[in-house]
């Protein structure tokens, strides 16, 4: 049985849902703008978000269109390998909880560089950290914008450029006027829509199989062979799998837009709760995408999925149409659009934080900027980054950007995470050590990715890669740690070591937090 699809044709329901979502979120932005006057309100929502709300918002920041449409597609076409991928994305969260979240809340103000620079020399640390942050944010942002353009084109039939401009403009309005308060509420609404939509989709799928997993999986193994239910090509090379695992696990603990969210809650207690809720929501969501992916393979069939888009990204919307008709397809398409908007908003705000708080306020102004000035510069940075995102989205049209998310995670794991971890836990860390660690991490990640199969073979069309693994983190993360430690030992900083004792009172007790 071959089904027909209305995907890609303007759908009244999806346009209706899209307008409803946009109007609601713009109204929230209007309300948020009236409450956004100080830097703490702009960057950190005035520290007024509860643990539960932040848990939803964190989940919203993390569940990108790639993890909804992409992983469902991966499961639909490759089976079990899709699950391996989503597990990699989840297991970083406990690490964030145990080693980073509350320390970040207790030591910093707006960006993770606040923590790294706490007892070291402001200027070099801020420059190096914002280099790591901006590299991560921009790569992630390009991947999201290019994805947005192609997805909106597939979902609504809009031209690519128009889609990118539309996403960019609405996102700029959220962040520019509503700052972190608006961004947080957009994330919360999007997370609820996505979790709700995916739940309904999974239930409608299971109905077809009488709520029997056994029936779903026997159908899959009859149709595509038993291999679909077993690990396949993703772990063909175990070292490559371990390297990818390291990037996903520790990269999560180094993503600037995730780390920034911990400043929106009032204290360490709420920071912990927010990771607990976020991990629960994200884990639940990945279990749903697993069901949705297999459901799409069973009900829609891989031929149709591949004929619409060969990467499998349309598996979930096609399944929505098959089990819930055009109305449900419209709803899921609008949810996917909301997902893209919310993620780019979070990324842009984090990038603006690095530009304005780290570089302008703390390097150029040496920490002496008035509240009014800080908010003004933050808004200017948002506008610049937003426009840049639109241009980059259009410039990279049709390019293979799949490596960019992997590279963003590799840089986060091998530049941001080591500097953060060492500055929290190691007394002898020095300014030169952190700078050396960050530079090593970024350089090695970039160079090794270029020499890897994803760029050297897939993009430059060379016959064989110079670096054999798809992800460099297994080399670049340890190298960054070793460099940071060696250089710190060679350049001892007495003042920083003395300050470590005082820092402990703040790290462990939260005395004097903002």
């Amino acid at each position, binding site marked *: 049985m071959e089904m027909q699809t209305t995907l890609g044709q303007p759908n009244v329901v999806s346009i209706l849902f899209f307008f409803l979502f946009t109007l609601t979120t713009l109204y929230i932005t209007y309300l948020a703008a009236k409450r956004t006057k100080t830097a703490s309100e702009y960057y950190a929502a005035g520290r007024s978000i509860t643990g539960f709300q932040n848990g939803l918002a964190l989940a919203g920041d993390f569940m990108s269109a790639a993890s909804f449409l992409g992983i469902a597609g991966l499961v639909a076409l490759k089976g079990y390998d899709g699950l391996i991928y989503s597990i990699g994305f989840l297991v970083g969260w406990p690490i964030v909880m145990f080693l980073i979240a509350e320390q970040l809340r207790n030591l910093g103000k707006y960006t993770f560089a606040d923590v790294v620079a706490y007892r070291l020399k402001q200027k070099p640390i801020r420059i190096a950290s914002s280099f790591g942050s901006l590299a991560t944010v921009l790569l992630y942002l390009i991947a999201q914008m290019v994805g947005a353009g192609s997805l909106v084109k597939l979902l609504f039939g809009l031209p690519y450029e128009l889609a990118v401009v539309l996403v960019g403009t609405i996102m700029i309005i959220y962040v520019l006027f509503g700052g972190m308060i608006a961004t947080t509420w957009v994330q919360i609404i999007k997370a609820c829509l996505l979790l709700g939509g995916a739940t309904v989709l999974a239930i409608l799928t299971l109905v077809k199989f009488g709520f029997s997993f056994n029936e779903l999986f026997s159908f899959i193994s009859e149709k595509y062979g038993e291999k679909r239910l077993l690990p396949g090509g993703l772990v063909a090379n*175990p070292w490559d799998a*371990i390297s990818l695992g390291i990037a996903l696990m520790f990269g999560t603990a180094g993503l600037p837009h995730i780390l920034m969210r911990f400043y929106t809650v009032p204290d360490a207690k709420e920071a912990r709760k927010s990771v607990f809720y976020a991990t629960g929501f994200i884990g639940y969501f990945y279990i749903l995408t697993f069901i949705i992916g297999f459901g799409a393979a069973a009900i829609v069939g891989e031929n149709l999925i591949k004929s619409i888009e060969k990467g499998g990204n349309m598996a979930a919307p096609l399944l929505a149409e098959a089990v819930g008709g055009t109305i449900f397809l419209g709803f899921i398409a609008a949810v996917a659009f909301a997902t893209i908007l919310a993620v780019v908003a979070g990324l842009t705000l984090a990038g603006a934080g690095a530009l304005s708080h780290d570089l302008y306020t703390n390097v150029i102004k040496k920490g002496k900027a008035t509240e009014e000035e800080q908010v003004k510069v933050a808004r200017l940075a948002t506008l610049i980054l937003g426009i840049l995102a639109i241009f980059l989205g259009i410039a990279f049209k049709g390019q293979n950007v799949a490596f960019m998310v992997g590279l963003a995670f590799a840089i986060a794991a091998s530049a941001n995470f080591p500097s953060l971890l060492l500055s929290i836990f190691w007394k002898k860390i020095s300014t030169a050590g952190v700078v050396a660690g960050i530079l090593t991490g970024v350089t090695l990640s970039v160079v090794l990715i270029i020499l890897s199969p994803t760029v050297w073979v897939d993009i430059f069309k060379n016959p064989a890669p110079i670096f054999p693994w798809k992800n460099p983190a297994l080399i670049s993360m340890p190298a960054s740690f070793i460099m940071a430690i060696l250089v710190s030992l060679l350049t001892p900083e007495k003042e920083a070591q003395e300050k470590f004792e005082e820092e*402990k009172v703040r790290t462990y007790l*939260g005395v004097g937090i903002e």
Partner: protein
Amino acid sequence: MKEVLSSPKFQTLMSQKNKVAFALTFIQLLIYYGFIYLLAFKKDFLAIKVTGSIPLGIPLGISVIIFSWLLTGVYTLWANSVYDRLVEEIKREIGKH
């Protein structure tokens, strides 16, 4: 402040916290890389049928997700009760000085 830092209570607080955090990190690494090890070297084991046509790999993968979440729950419960109570005690003592 110096008194607080050198007080046995604060020392215990720090060592307890680090022990719990690093132990849980270690467990999490063990779970995840144990799973990767099975994927890479014990594919036959993952192919064992649990019931009907469901191979062991599927419930095992789902368990990694659920277990990771439970670990964050264990930590939150411990830190928000036991640890925070000690923190409050020490903060009160600082207030007295």
